[in-house]
């Protein structure tokens, strides 16, 4: 059976080209709104060191870790700049009725 959709926030709670932190149980996610008004979700921590990606800067499709400037494409999870080497896990996101939902698999 598929995991249920979990409500994250109102879509307006995330500014365009920005990211917020979302804690659910023991899981921490980073939930993004792109400059093209699309929503995405990845692991909340950088794969290089345990640093919150929600504290990083979003530029286009890139999230930059605030500590060592490792970069990831948050739409695919792919690592784009060292010291980040390992990809981020991504999660399905949907927006309905002005609310953002994520599925944690």
């Amino acid at each position, binding site marked *: 059976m598929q995991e249920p959709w979990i409500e994250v926030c109102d879509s307006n709670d995330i*500014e365009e080209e920005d990211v917020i932190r979302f804690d659910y149980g023991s899981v921490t996610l980073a939930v993004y709104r792109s400059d093209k008004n699309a929503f995405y979700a990845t692991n909340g921590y950088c794969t290089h*060191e345990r640093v*919150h990606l*929600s*504290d990083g800067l979003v530029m286009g499709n890139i999230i*930059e870790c*605030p500590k060592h400037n490792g970069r990831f494409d948050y739409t695919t999870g792919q690592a784009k700049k060292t010291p980040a080497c390992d990809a981020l896990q991504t999660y399905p996101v949907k927006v309905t009725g002005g609310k953002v939902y994520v599925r944690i698999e």
Partner: protein
Amino acid sequence: MTIESIVIVGAGEAGARAAIELREGGFNGEITIVGRENMHPYERPPLSKTVLLMPQTPAPATILDEQKCGAYQINLITGKEAIKIERGQKRVVFEDGSSKGYDRLLLATGANPRRLMLEGSDTSGVMYLRTYADALVLRSRLSAGKRVVVIGGGFIGLEVAASARETGCEVTLLDLAPRILMRGVPAQIAGQMESRHREAGVQFKLGTGIEQIHAPAGREHAVTLSDGTILKCDVIVAGIGAIPETTLASASGLVVDNGIVVDDQLRTSDPHIYAAGDCCSFPHHLFGGQRMRLEAWRNAVDQAIVAARNLVGGTESYAAVPWFWSDQYDKTLQVVGLPDLGCVTVERSGLNGNQLYVHLDEEGTIVAASGIGDGSLGKEIRILEKLIERRAKPSSEQLSDPAIRLKSLL
């Protein structure tokens, strides 16, 4: 002439990152890194924090392990000291008499802790923190109830003080200067960090010199201050700055002046030799060509990348804005740019109660920004860094108004 062999002297952050960048940039020739320490290259920032704090001894945060050296075909030689560069023959000579030829050479020799020059200070009882080995020794001496004297109110001293407090030690921090973080950190931020330390129970003795140190191995230590106070303690750690490691460069006739002198492309006075990281003094275009030498993680990484590209024929100019951070307790402090060049400081309330200061020069150009707060500070400082890069001149009103998003000023 084709470049077939690159030798990197120094296996720290800069040396290792340069090797990785060379390979990732498509260089197919031979890459050799020679390091003094008997270890694979590792990250140093955790040494004053997690390495001292974790309940179990943490392994070093390795940058280039055996597997990666293999995959990248990087020839890593550890525990070996280079003593001379025979520039005419383009080869590096090592302590054991062996040598290695190069087409291009990168010096990433780093820096060494400045040593105290006081009566009684020349003993293993006075500790310094630079290497993983240093951190393990210090770690073994920190435990609940130990009395620790930290000499120096810079980043290393403060981070060690915070870690020692968190381990349950009694900590006294000394500095000759009237306040902590005199170098490159605005007084407002230093004041807030000092308060955080006092709240955690650190005692301060500022504006006080040291007369004498007594640190016999395995016995009680004592630090005698210039005002006559005697501080009895179990551990003494000094963090009083770093001196660039330029012995090899000097011995080989390269120009050295507070670091190995390089141009904006990180080339030394010998066109076949480059330098990167803590060891080099470089001109910064963004700040009128002013020469500087930075001891910071990101500078080491970014310079290594530029040097790697230029070693194989690139002509990139290094122009990254200086940036550093320090984590102490639950607070992070960050400075980007050169606050000393500012003449007007604008205060800004940031996210989550973060306090930001933006430093403007006479013409209103942003030359630096600094802040103290939680992890979210990074996001705001990064935007300010971009504003510095662009030599932006937003008004003080825009900068201080929390309703105006910093990003909108880009």
